[in-house]
C-alpha cells in the first residue's frame, strides 16, 4: 500500500514534468507541439469570435492582384505603406553619404505581382534619385534549372549568384571612391539579425544542405567588422534573394564579391522573409553603425505583397507589433 | 543391406574427411551442435560426399528436415532400397 503510494507520487511527478515541458513547448512558435495544438484548436473552435493572429494562414499573394475593389483597395494601402518606408529608408541612407544602388531581382518577371511591383518601385526610385538596376534581362534568358535549385526550390544556385555578382561588381568598380561621411561614437555589438557565431549545416527541410556561417555580429560573413574601418564597405540588404539560402558562404553573391575584392569588406545582412519595413528598422537599429559606403538594396514585388499582415506576423522582425488594418481584415474574411 | 552401425561408421569417415578438424565420433543422437565445425556449408559438402558414396541424390527438403545423424542414417537406408 505504502509502496504503491510512492509509485503513484513518482508517476504524478514525472507526468507533471512532462506536462510542464509540453506546456512550455506549446508556447514556442517554432515547435511541432504548438503547430499540432493550433491545428487541433482550429479544427475544434472555428466559430470563435476572438481574433488570435497566429490563427491566420498565409494567403496566396495572387489574391491581392485579383480584379475586385477590395483587393485593389488593400493593394493600394500596401503600396502606400511601401512608399512611406522606402522614402524614409532612402533618405536616411543617402544622408550618410553612402551610394545606394537598388537591385530589381526576380525569376518570375511576368506574374502580376512583379509587373505591378516593377512599375511602382522603379517610379519610386526615379522620384527619389536612386539607381534602379534591373537584373531580369541577365537571367530571363537562362533556364531555371541552370541558375536556381529548380525544381526543388526557386532560389539562386551558385551559377545564378555568379551572374548577379558579375553585374554588381561593375557598380562596385564604378563607385570605388565613394566614401560615407557618417561615423558613430557608440554602436551596438550586433549589426545583423542572424544568430551570431553560427557554424551549422542546415537544409531548410528541402534536402539542399548548406553551411550557414555568421560572425559574432549577426552578419552572414566569415570575419568581424572592426572600427575605425580601414577598407571600403559594401552592404547587402534584402530578403532571401540576397541571403542566398542553400549556398555555402563562399558561394553566395556576397561571398563571391568578397573574393573578387579582397580590399573591400562585403557585409551580408539580408534575411529570409524581410520586407521594406524591416529594412528600415534594421537600418536604424543596427545596420547604419557598420558605416557602409555602397549599399545594394534588393527588393521586388514580393515586398509589397508581403506587407500584408499574414506574412508580416510570420516573418517580420517586429512580428509582435503587427496588427491588421480594417481593409486587410475584410479582405481576409472574404478569402477564408 | 547395410546395418545402421555400418552406415554410421562410413559416415564417420566422410565427416572426418570433409570437416577436417580431427577425429569425429558419431552416434544416432549426434546433432550439428555437437560436432565442431559442422555448419550449414560443410553440411552441403557432407551431403554431396554421401551422395557420391551411395550413388543417389537427395532433394533439398529431405536434407533440411534432418534433425540428427539417426535421421540421416534412416534416410540413407530408405534411399538405397
Amino acid at each position, binding site marked *: 500500500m505504502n509502496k504503491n503510494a510512492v509509485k503513484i507520487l513518482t508517476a504524478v511527478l514525472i507526468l507533471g514534468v512532462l506536462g510542464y515541458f509540453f506546456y512550455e513547448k506549446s508556447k514556442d512558435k517554432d515547435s511541432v507541439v504548438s503547430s499540432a495544438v493550433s491545428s487541433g484548436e482550429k479544427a475544434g473552435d472555428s466559430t470563435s469570435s476572438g481574433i488570435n493572429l497566429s490563427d491566420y494562414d498565409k494567403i496566396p499573394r495572387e489574391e491581392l492582384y485579383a480584379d475586385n475593389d477590395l483587393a485593389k483597395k488593400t493593394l493600394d494601402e500596401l503600396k502606400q505603406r511601401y512608399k512611406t518606408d522606402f522614402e524614409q529608408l532612402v533618405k536616411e541612407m543617402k544622408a550618410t553619404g553612402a551610394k545606394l544602388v537598388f537591385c530589381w531581382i526576380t525569376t518570375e518577371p511576368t506574374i502580376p505581382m512583379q509587373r505591378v511591383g516593377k512599375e511602382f518601385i522603379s517610379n519610386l526610385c526615379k522620384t527619389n534619385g536612386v539607381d534602379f538596376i534591373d537584373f531580369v534581362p541577365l537571367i530571363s534568358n537562362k533556364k531555371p534549372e541552370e541558375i536556381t535549385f529548380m525544381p526543388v526550390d526557386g532560389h539562386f544556385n551558385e551559377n545564378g549568384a555568379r551572374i548577379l555578382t558579375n553585374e554588381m561588381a561593375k557598380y562596385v568598380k564604378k563607385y570605388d571612391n565613394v566614401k560615407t561621411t557618417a561615423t558613430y561614437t557608440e554602436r551596438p555589438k550586433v549589426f545583423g539579425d542572424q544568430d551570431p557565431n553560427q557554424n551549422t549545416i*542546415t537544409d531548410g527541410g528541402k534536402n539542399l544542405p548548406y553551411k550557414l556561417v555568421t560572425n559574432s555580429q549577426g552578419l552572414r560573413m566569415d570575419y568581424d567588422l572592426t572600427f575605425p574601418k580601414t577598407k571600403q564597405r559594401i552592404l547587402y540588404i534584402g530578403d532571401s534573394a540576397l541571403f542566398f539560402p542553400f549556398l555555402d558562404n563562399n558561394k553566395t553573391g556576397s561571398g563571391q564579391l568578397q573574393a573578387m575584392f579582397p580590399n573591400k569588406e562585403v557585409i551580408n545582412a539580408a534575411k529570409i522573409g524581410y520586407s521594406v519595413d524591416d529594412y528600415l528598422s534594421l537600418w536604424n537599429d543596427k545596420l547604419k553603425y557598420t558605416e557602409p559606403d555602397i549599399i545594394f538594396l534588393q527588393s521586388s514585388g514580393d515586398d509589397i505583397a508581403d506587407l500584408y499582415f499574414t506574412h508580416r506576423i510570420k516573418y517580420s522582425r517586429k512580428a509582435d507589433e503587427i496588427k491588421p488594418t480594417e481593409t486587410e481584415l475584410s479582405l481576409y474574411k472574404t478569402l477564408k | 543391406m547395410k546395418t545402421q552401425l555400418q552406415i554410421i561408421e562410413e559416415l564417420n569417415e566422410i565427416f572426418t574427411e570433409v570437416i577436417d578438424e580431427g577425429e569425429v565420433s558419431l552416434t544416432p543422437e549426434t546433432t550439428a551442435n555437437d560436432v565442431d*565445425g559442422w555448419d550449414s556449408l560443410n553440411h552441403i559438402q557432407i551431403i554431396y560426399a554421401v551422395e557420391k558414396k551411395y550413388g543417389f541424390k537427395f532433394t533439398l527438403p529431405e536434407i*533440411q528436415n534432418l534433425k540428427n545423424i539417426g535421421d540421416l542414417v534412416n534416410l540413407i537406408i530408405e534411399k538405397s532400397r
Partner: protein
Amino acid sequence: MLFSSFSFFIFFPIVFILYWALKANRKWQNMLLLVSSYVFYGWWDWRFCFLLLFSSTFGFFVTKLLSETDSDKKRRLYMNLSIVVHIGILCYYKYFNFFISSFTDFAKNLGFNVDYTPLQIALPLAISFFTFHILGYTYDVYQRKYPASNNYFEFIAHIAFFPQLVAGPIERANHLLPQFANKRQFSWIKMEDGLMQMLWGFFKKIVIADTLATQVNYAFAHYQDLHPITLIIAVIMFTFQMYCDFSGYSDIALGCARLLGFELLQNFNYPFFSTSVSEFWRKWHMSLSNWIQDYLFTPISFNKRAWGKFGIFYAALVSFTISGLWHGANWTFIIWGAVHGIAIGYELLTKKKRKGWAKKYNPIAYSIGSGILVFIFWSFTQLIFRATSVDHFYGILKQIVTAKWVFQPEVNSVYLLYIVGLLLFEWFQRSKPYALQIINWPYYIKWAICALIIITIFSSKNLNNQTEFLYFQF
C-alpha cells in the same frame, strides 16, 4: 503514413482502443487490423491498395492450388507461376526503367542509335517487402515445410499487417500467421515493453539519424570541396545514420505490433559488435539475411554442390548481388551486394584458416582487431550504398584518396559523440532484445529515463522537417 507523422499519432491510438475493445471476438479484431492496414497503406496512395490486394490474393490461391495437388510437375508449375507473377510485378514497378536504360546505354556504347524516354512509373511503397514475404510463404509450402493457409482473410491481413508492411521485418507465414489464428493476450508488461521499444525507435530515428542526416547530406552533396577527414567522418556518420534509421524503424514496428499483442521477428541484434562480415549479416536486417539464406543461398549452394568450394562462393556472390538489386534499381546497389557476396564467400572459404589465426593471438585483441576491420569494410560499402551513382561513389573515393589532408572537419564532428554514446549504451545492454529494454529497472529510474527521452525527442529541431525512413525506397 509515416510512423513519425502526426497522422500516425492519431491513427494508432484509435486502432489500439478499438482493437482491445474487440478483445472478445478474434475475427472482428482481425478484420479491424485488415481495414486499418489498408487505411495505413492507402494514406500514401490509395490506388496501390489494389496492387497489394492482388498480390496477396494471388499468393494465397496459387499456394492453395499448389498444396492441393500431389503431382510434382503441377507443384513446380504453380511455384514457377508464382515467381514469374510476383517478380514480374516487382520488375515492372521497380526495375523496368533501369533495365531498359542500362540496355540503351550499352547499345549506345556499341554504336547503335537508340532513343528511349523513361516511363513514368511510381514505385509502390513496400512492394519489395510484401513480394518477398509472399514468395517465401509459397516456397515453404512448395517444400512442404508447413501446410498452406485455409483462411483467406487471416492471410491477407497478415500480409498487410501495418506495423511490418512498409519496411519489414520481412515476416514468415509460419511465424506471423499462427498469431492471427490465436487469441491475443492483453498484458500491462507487454504494453510497457512495446511502448519502450517504440520510444527507443523514435529516439534513434528522430534524435540520432535525422541529426546525422544533415551532416551526411551536406558532405555527400559538396564532396568536391571537402577534405578526406571530413568525408571519412561523413561516411562513418552515414553508417550510423542508416543503422539508427532502419533499426529505429524496426523497433517502432516491433513495439507497435507488441502493443497489439503480436511478436514480429527481431531485425537487428547489435551488429556493430561483430567480428566477421558473416556475423554482421546475422545481426543486421536479420529478416532479410535469413530470407536470402533460406531462399537463395541454400538452394543455390545445394544445387551447385558438385562444384565444391567454388559452388559456395558462387552461391554467396549470386544471392548477395540479388539482395543488392532488391534494395534498388541502381548499379551502386548491385556493386554493394556483389562486394558483400565476395566478402562472405571469402569468409566461408577461409573459416578454418581464420580459426588458426585466432589461436595465435590474444583473443580479446583479435576480436577487437577484427571488429574494427569489419567496421571499416562495412562503412566502405555504406559509401557505395549512399552514393547516388557509380560516378558519385568514384568521385568521393577519389577525393578521399587524392585530396590534401586538413585536420579540421567541415561537418560538425561533435555529433560523433552521439555515436560513441549509442555504442556504449548498446554494449551495456547487448544481452537485451533492444537497448532500451529496462522494464526490470526500478520504476523511478525507468520512468525518468523514458520522460527524458520524450523530452529529448520533442526538443529536437528535426521534428520540424521530418525525413522519410531510408528503407521506404526499397
